[in-house]
C-alpha cells in the first residue's frame, strides 16, 4: 500500500499539531525530511519510541519536532507509522505536509487511516459501520467543497487547460486511428506550443491558490507609521494577547523579523517586527523609506496615525503608500486630546478605526476589519478546505511534472504514441479535480473535429 499522510489535528487556533503518516515506506519518506538528533538508523529504533530532531528541507530547518515511531504491525493502521509532533502551528504544519508529499507520500483520503486500520484487521466488526460513516460524512463535506469550487474559477480554468490538451490529443489520436485519411499530421512544434500555453496556465493556477497560500503562509501584514505613532505599542498589544501564535520553546531560537497571530483561525504574518521593536534607535529614523519597502511586500497595511499631534509631511507620505493597497487606517491615542485634522485621512477611502494602544480600545475592531477584508471566516470555516487545496496543488504540480516529461519525450525524438501517453496522464491528473475521465472525452473530440469513417 502507498504511504499516506495528513494533518491529524484540527486546523485553526492552537500552536501544536500532529502530522501523521502510514504505509510500508513511511520511514523512507520520514528519513528524507527528519534529521534526528542522534542519527540512529531506523532498524535501531524501536516501536513506541519518541525521537527528537529537526524537520529539514535540504539544509533549511523547518521546525523542531518530536517524532513517535510505530512499527508494523503494532500501530493504529497495522502498517509502519509515524507521528510528527510539530509546534510550528498551521503554517509550519502545512510546510511539513508539503515536504512529505514532495518526498513520496500521498495525501490521505477522508477516513483513510481508519479504513486501513480496518482492512488490516485492527478494528473489529462493530466499528466498521462507524468507519463507513466517517467516509461518508467526510466525503459529503469534500463533495460540498468541490461543488463550491467547481462553480468557481478553478474548475473553469482547469477545464480550459483540459480542453487544450484534449484538443491536441484528439488531433494525435485521430491520425493514429485513421492513418488512411489526409488529416494534418500533428507536428512537435504544435504540441510544444500547446504545452507552453498549458504550462503558463498551470503556473498561474499554482500561484493563484489564494486561500491555500493564506493558510500556509499567512497574510503578510505591514504596520507603518511615523516615529512614535504607536507601532511598537500596537505590536506589543497584539502579541501579548492570546491570539499570538507562541513558538518560543526553550532551546529554540526564532527569527524575530516576523511574528504570527491568529485571526479567525488564519495566520496574520506581521513583517519587520524587528524594525518596529527598535522604535527608538537609528532604524526608526530611516522612517518613511523603510515603510515604503515593507509596504510593498505586504498583503495588507496597517497605517497608524497619532491623532494627539497634528499630521505632518511624514504622515502624508505614509498616506500616499496606501493607494491601491489593502489598508486599514488606525487613529491612535484616542485617550488623549485630538489635535489632528482627520479629514485628509477620510479622503483616502480606507476603513478607519479609532484605537488606543494604551487602553486597548478598538483593537477588536481592527481584527474584525481584517477578517472582513479577507473573508477569513470563509477560509477557515472548514478544515477540509486546506486538505482539498493541498490536494489540488499536488495535482497541479503532478500535472506540471508530466508536462515536463512530455516535453522530454519530444526532445528525445520519441514517436507520437508515447508523447500522447504523457498528455493523457496530464488530462487524467487534472480530471481528478473536475471528476471527468479521459477516453470518452478524447473520442468525442475526435469525431466532432474530424470527418472520418466509411
Amino acid at each position, binding site marked *: 500500500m502507498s504511504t499516506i499522510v495528513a494533518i491529524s489535528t484540527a486546523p485553526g487556533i492552537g500552536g501544536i499539531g500532529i502530522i501523521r503518516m502510514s504505509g510500508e515506506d513511511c520511514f523512507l519518506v520520514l528519513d528524507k525530511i527528519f534529521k534526528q538528533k542522534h542519527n540512529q538508523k531506523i532498524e535501531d529504533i524501536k516501536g513506541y519510541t519518541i525521537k527528537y530532531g529537526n524537520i529539514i528541507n535540504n539544509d533549511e530547518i523547518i521546525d523542531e519536532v518530536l517524532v513517535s515511531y510505530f512499527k508494523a504491525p503494532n500501530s493504529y493502521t497495522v502498517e509502519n507509522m509515524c507521528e510528527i509532533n510539530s509546534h510550528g502551528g498551521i503554517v509550519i504544519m502545512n510546510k511539513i505536509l508539503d515536504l512529505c508529499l514532495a518526498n513520496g507520500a500521498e495525501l490521505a483520503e477522508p477516513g483513510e487511516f481508519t*479504513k486501513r486500520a*480496518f482492512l488490516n484487521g485492527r478494528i473489529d466488526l462493530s466499528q466498521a459501520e462507524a468507519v463507513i460513516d466517517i467516509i461518508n460524512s467526510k466525503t459529503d463535506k469534500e463533495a460540498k467543497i468541490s461543488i463550491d469550487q467547481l462553480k468557481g474559477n478553478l474548475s473553469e480554468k482547469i477545464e480550459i487547460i483540459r480542453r487544450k490538451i484534449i484538443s491536441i490529443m484528439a488531433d494525435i489520436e485521430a491520425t*493514429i486511428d485513421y492513418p488512411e485519411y489526409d488529416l494534418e499530421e500533428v507536428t512537435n512544434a504544435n504540441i510544444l506550443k500547446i504545452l507552453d500555453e498549458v504550462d503558463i496556465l498551470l503556473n498561474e493556477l499554482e500561484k493563484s491558490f489564494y486561500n491555500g497560500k493564506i493558510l500556509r503562509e499567512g497574510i503578510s501584514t505591514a504596520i507603518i507609521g511615523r516615529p512614535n505613532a504607536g507601532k511598537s505599542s500596537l505590536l506589543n498589544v497584539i502579541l501579548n494577547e492570546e491570539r499570538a501564535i507562541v513558538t518560543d520553546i526553550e532551546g529554540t531560537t526564532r527569527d524575530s523579523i516576523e511574528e504570527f497571530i491568529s485571526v479567525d483561525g488564519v495566520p496574520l504574518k506581521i513583517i519587520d517586527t524587528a524594525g518596529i521593536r527598535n522604535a527608538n534607535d537609528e532604524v526608526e529614523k530611516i522612517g518613511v523609506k523603510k515603510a515604503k519597502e515593507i509596504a510593498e511586500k505586504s498583503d495588507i497595511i496597517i497605517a497608524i496615525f497619532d491623532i494627539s499631534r497634528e499630521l505632518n509631511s511624514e504622515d502624508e507620505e505614509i498616506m500616499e503608500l496606501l493607494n491601491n493597497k489593502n489598508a486599514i487606517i488606525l487613529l491612535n491615542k484616542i485617550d488623549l486630546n485630538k489635535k489632528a485634522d482627520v479629514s485628509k485621512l477620510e479622503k483616502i477611502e480606507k476603513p478607519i478605526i479609532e484605537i488606543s494602544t494604551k487602553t486597548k480600545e478598538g483593537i477588536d475592531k481592527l481584527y474584525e476589519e481584517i477578517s472582513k477584508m479577507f473573508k477569513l471566516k470563509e477560509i477557515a470555516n472548514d478544515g477540509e478546505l486546506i486538505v482539498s487545496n493541498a490536494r489540488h496543488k499536488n495535482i497541479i504540480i503532478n500535472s506540471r511534472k508530466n508536462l515536463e516529461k512530455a516535453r522530454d519525450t519530444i526532445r528525445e525524438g520519441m514517436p507520437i504514441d508515447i508523447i500522447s*501517453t504523457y498528455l493523457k496522464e496530464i488530462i487524467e491528473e487534472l480530471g481528478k479535480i473536475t471528476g471527468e475521465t479521459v477516453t470518452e472525452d478524447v473520442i468525442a473530440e475526435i469525431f466532432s473535429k474530424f*470527418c472520418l*469513417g466509411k
Partner: protein
Amino acid sequence: MKYDAGEYDVAVIGAGHAGCEAALASSRLGMKTLLFSISLECIANMPCNPHIGGTSKGHLVREIDALGGEMGKNIDKTMIQIRMLNTSKGPAVHSLRAQADRKKYQMEMKHTLEKQDNLFLKQAEIVDITIEDGKVETIETNLGAIYHVKTIIVATGTYLKGKIFIGENSYESGPDGVSAAKPLSDCLKSLGIELQRFKTGTPARINRRSIDFSKMEIQEGENDIVPFSFEDKTREFEQIPCWLTYTNEKTHEIIRANLHRSPLYAGLIEGTGPRYCPSIEDKVVRFADKERHQIFVEPVGIDTEEMYIQGMSSSLPEDVQIAMYRTLPGLENCEFTRPAYAIEYDAIEPSQLKSSLELKNISGLFFAGQINGTSGYEEAACQGLIAGINAVQKIKGKDPLILDRSDAYIGVLIDDIVTKSTAEPYRMMTSRAEYRLLLRQDNADLRLTEIGHNIGLISDERYERFLVKKKQIDEEIERLRTTNIKPTDKNNKFLVEHGTSTITAGTKIADLLKRTELTYEMLREIDINRPELDKQVIEEVEVMIKYEGYIEMQKKQVEGFKKLEKRLLPEDIDYSKIKGIRLEARQKLNKFKPYSVGQASRISGVSPADISVLLIYLEQKKKAKKG
C-alpha cells in the same frame, strides 16, 4: 411437425465472424458443436468493407491468433493486398491491414468449418430458445427440429429484425439479400432480454470496368510484411492496388438538394448510428465547410469486377446515389452493381452480460459480435472466440476466461461494453486502451500464447515453438545489455556517420540502441558477434529495448490497476443491502454485477467513496465467515 434432433453441447446461432470463431473454438476443445446459418452462402461474409485489420483491429486479429483463433490464418490465405499502417507513429500503434478476396475468405472459412471434427454446420433459422430452471434447454429451427443443448451462443450480427432503407424504399432483410431473423428477436424479448435498435450502412458496389482509374491516386500494397498469424510465414503474392478519389462541391450540392428524401433525415430510421461511420449525407451536413471528402475504391476480390467505394455509404434513393457517385473523378460513367443502403437491426443492451459474455440472468446463454452492439468483423470475431471458450469452460465446470484491460485489446473491448451502456455501435480504437504501450500487435503472442495453450487451443508443438522464440528474445536482450562497445576510432567513426554522439568509455549495445538515431539493423556493423535471428524476434527485441523506460512506466501503472482487479466480487452480493453505498451506486452495482472491485470502479455513477465502503463490506464478510 416438430421432431427431436438430438443432444449437443454447444449451439452457435449465426456463422459470421463471431459465430465461426465460437464454433471452431468449442469444437476444437472437444465439444459437440452445432453451427446454424440462415444461408450457408453467407458464412464469414463481409457485407461491408472487404478488408481485415487496420488500427486496433489489426491488434485484435493478432490476439485472436495468439489465443488459437482462426481469423488471422484465414486472412493470410486469402488476402490480395497487405500494408503496415502507422509505422512512423510509434511501436504501440503499428497496424496491419489487408484487403481480402471476399469470396475466397468465405469459401476458405466454410471449408475449415466443414473439415472440423465435432462441428456440425446446418443451414437453418433458429426461431426459439427454451429455458428451464434459469438454464438453456433446447433450441428450435424453423423446420421444427428441436436440439437439446448445454450452452447457446447467439451471434446473429445485424440479422435480428434487419430492415434495409434505400430512399423512400424500405424492406425487412439482412445484408446481401439474405432474409432477416424475426422470430428469434421476439423470443429474446420474451426471455426478458433488453434490446436496442442500432443502425449502420454500406456504400454501393461498382463494376470496375466502368471506372476511369487514370483520374484517381493509386495505393499499392507493401512487400515483405509479416502476416497476421504468428504461425504463418511471409508470402509473396500479386498485390492488387486500392484507389483514392474525392467528393467535390457538385457531389455535396446533389446531397443537399435531396436530403428530404433520406430516410434518416425524414425521420424514418429510429436506430442510432455510429459517429465513426457516418453516411456521406451525414458528413456533408455535419462538416458543411469541408470542401471535399476522401473516397477509397477497394477491390472486392480477384474473381470479380466489383469494387467497394469506401466513404460513400448512404441511404439516399438509388437515382440520387447514382447521380452523386457520378460527380466523382473517375466515376463519371460508373455502373452500380449494388446500391448503398442503411440497415437497422436489434442488438442487446450489453450491460446484461458478464465479462465471460454469458447473460447474467440465464445460465448457458452467451452473446457475441454485432448483436452486442459492437461493429466490425474483428470486434465480432474476438468476442466469438471468447464466448466459444467460455461456453466450453462452463460445461467443463471451469472458471471463465476473462482478459483484463492490461492483458489485451479484447479485454478492453469486453470490459467497455459490459460496464458502459453504449448509445451507438462500439468500434475498437487504440485510444481506448490505457496500457497500449504494452498491448502491441507485435507482442500479442508473448501476451496470450500461454493462455491459449492452457485453454487448449494452442497445440503443444506451437507452444514449444513459441517458447523457443521467447527464449531467443530474452537471450538477445540480455546479450545487448551486457555486451560492451569499445570507444575505438572505428566505432566512434560509425557513430558520427549515423549522426549521433561519440563514446568515451565502453558502452552497452542496449544503451546505444536506445538512441533515436540508431536502429538494431544499423548496429550490425559494430556488433560483431551477433546471432542470426528471425525478423519477428528482432522486432520484439528492438521495441523492448528502445522503449524500455516507457514500457516500465506502464507496467507500474498496471500493478496499481491489478490490485483492485484481483479483488473478485461474488455474484450473489445484494448491493441494495450494503449500508453506506449511495443509492445510485447501489442500483448501478446491482444492475451491472461487476466481477471485480476494479470493474465496479469503472461503472459510471460509482464513486471512490462507494468503492471504499465496498472494500470494507467485503472485509466484514470475510471476517464474519472466519469468526
